[in-house]
């Protein structure tokens, strides 16, 4: 029996008429941690946006399933309620909407979707305070506008805090490590590791091997030019760190040439 949680098959997607994802395949089973690395502009964030249903990101073909649910048929909020969570590379500032009010609405909406009663304000506040503590954010961040005036590192920790509260099935972390100081990196990693329970899965997008020292991936993929071009185990990240992506691209060019010759 397969226990695939996320299955992305031959996904093609574009933004403003520009094709970004060009036949992407990815399967993440329950409990696994997958790291995605790859050059700037390869389409890593685009994958997160397409899976979470951001407006303007057009799916041209292919499919994406989370468990039994066809993600691509759902509204963004329905995807979240199915258990998808994307920690943004660039979290949005929303002045005037308090972090607390927003999180309560999110938690209640997800509970309602599961047929559960909304949490009492008191219980919720308790959970929210605990989550803040876990990522080393002072509790008065809850009162502030969503990400309003947060430093880069605080925004990233705020994303992880939300993940802790929402308890998703699949977490996509888009460069949650960039812009973090060394201590914050550990805090984020510990936050993630505390959520590993054998069922919950993670897709960790990162440029640096460093994060993977703390969050041990089961698989490492290279996303280049809209496709997963290479997959391996944790050692692939080390190899990439040492050699960059150039060798991969050369290898691909050679493969393409060979393929071309065969056609003749």
């Amino acid at each position, binding site marked *: 029996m397969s226990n695939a949680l996320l299955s992305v098959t031959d996904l093609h997607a574009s933004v403003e008429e520009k094709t970004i994802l060009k036949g992407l395949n990815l399967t993440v089973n329950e409990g696994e941690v997958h790291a995605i690395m790859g050059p700037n502009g390869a389409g890593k964030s685009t994958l997160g946006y397409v899976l979470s249903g951001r407006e303007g990101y057009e799916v041209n073909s292919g499919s994406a399933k989370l468990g039994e649910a066809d993600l691509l048929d759902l*509204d963004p*909020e329905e995807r979240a309620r199915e258990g998808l969570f994307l920690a943004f590379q660039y979290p949005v500032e929303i002045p005037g909407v308090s972090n607390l009010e*927003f999180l309560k609405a999110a938690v209640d909406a997800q509970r309602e979707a599961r047929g559960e009663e909304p949490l009492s304000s008191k219980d919720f506040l308790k959970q929210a305070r605990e989550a803040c503590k876990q990522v080393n954010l002072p509790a008065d961040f809850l009162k502030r506008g969503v990400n309003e005036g947060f430093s880069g590192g605080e925004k990233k920790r705020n994303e992880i805090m939300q993940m802790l509260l929402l308890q998703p099935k699949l977490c996509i972390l888009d460069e949650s490590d960039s812009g973090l100081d060394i201590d914050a990196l550990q805090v984020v990693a510990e936050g993630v590791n505390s959520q590993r329970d054998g069922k919950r899965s993670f897709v960790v997008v990162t440029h640096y091997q460093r994060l993977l020292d703390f969050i041990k991936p089961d698989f490492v993929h290279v996303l280049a030019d809209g496709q997963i071009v290479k997959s391996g185990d944790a050692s692939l990240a080390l190899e990439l760190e040492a050699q960059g992506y150039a060798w991969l691209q050369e290898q691909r060019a050679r493969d393409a040439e060979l393929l071309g010759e065969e056609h003749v």
Partner: protein
Amino acid sequence: MSTWLANAIVRGTDVSDWLSEKRQAALGKLKQQSWPNRKTEAWKYTPVSVIDRGAFSPAVNDVDANAAIDAIDNLDASALVFLNGRYCEALSCKTLPEGVSITSFHNASAAQKEWALAQFASVKPDRHLFGLINDVLAEDGLLIDVEPGVQVTTLLRVVNLFSEGIEAHSRILVRVGKGAKLAIAEEFTNSTPSLNTSFAEYVIEDNAELEHYRFALQTGSALSVGGGHFKLHDHSKLHSTLVGFGSQLSRVDVDIEHAGQHAYAEKNVVYLLDGKEIFDLHSTIEHAKPNGTTEENVRGIVADQAKVVFNGRIHIHRDAQKTLAELNNRNLLLSRKAEVNTKPELEIYADDVRCAHGATVAELDTKALYYLQSRGVSRQDAQIMLNFGFINELVDRMPNEALATWLRSKLKVRFAQMKVSSPQDALVNS
């Protein structure tokens, strides 16, 4: 001509007290003014004919047992109550903060009359028609005088209560002495048919600080015309918040004069309008002296067939070098029939200044919408949150947290009523 105005002039002739000289002067000016019509620039979009259609009787001093003052949690405040335009000691707070003298017009001492006479109609410009009417007809008012250097931490709540069918005119004169600090809120919340004018003149002396609120929350057929006029001396500070709901006639005139150098003024305005309500704000910032700073943020949500009028004038005089003045007006329209008439007026005669002025129809932030949805919040709820957040940003800036909490829940109630009549996707209508 308006029969109401003619009648007011006759009544004004009869008022006789220690302010008579001032009243006579105002009466003279009033007689030269004409009743506004559509061609009157200051009243172009706001008809005043409703005043003549209503039948109002002058104030009687009956203590209405039902008159309730909104309780505000965790607020350190003293209530000062006007009942039908007259100061009502019975309903007002007995213990007042130290270092501030608070007296009604009727109980003023010779010394109080002296500064009051100097201040009466000196901060408020003569051009406001209803200001002149108030000069003539305001039989009662409050004199509030903060001694130099005194920091009053207790908020003064000036609560205005009205009986049905009443016409009332009241006045507030406030002097914040050198280096002193005061916080004051003027509250209007009635919806019963009535007419009131209420004008307040504030002098903020050198290094003094005023935290000011006007909650112009009258609705329905409660007609209200009022003004807040501020004179800022050297290094003084003003933080003022105006909140308006609309009614058949709801008009506020604001004047902020930088009469000293290095003064700082922050004015935030929020309005929420529904039905066929009107809210009309005319604000004028006068930078007469150098090195002054003004930040004015005006934001509102207009639903259904409601109408907002905002005229924002900034006047930087020749001597007012190094002035920093910013004014912005943003509106969110919830229906195609909602109307916004916004007019910026900039007059700059100094060359070394920084001045920005803008009016826009606010767009829904699609990135923020997606962010909220990506956490499981429905699109509709996310829109409501963002729309409310748009005005709440200015509520967040209120220095008094207890007051902000109270206001937020009042705004939420009103906002929730508004959304019923508004199609969620007809949000932006530029």
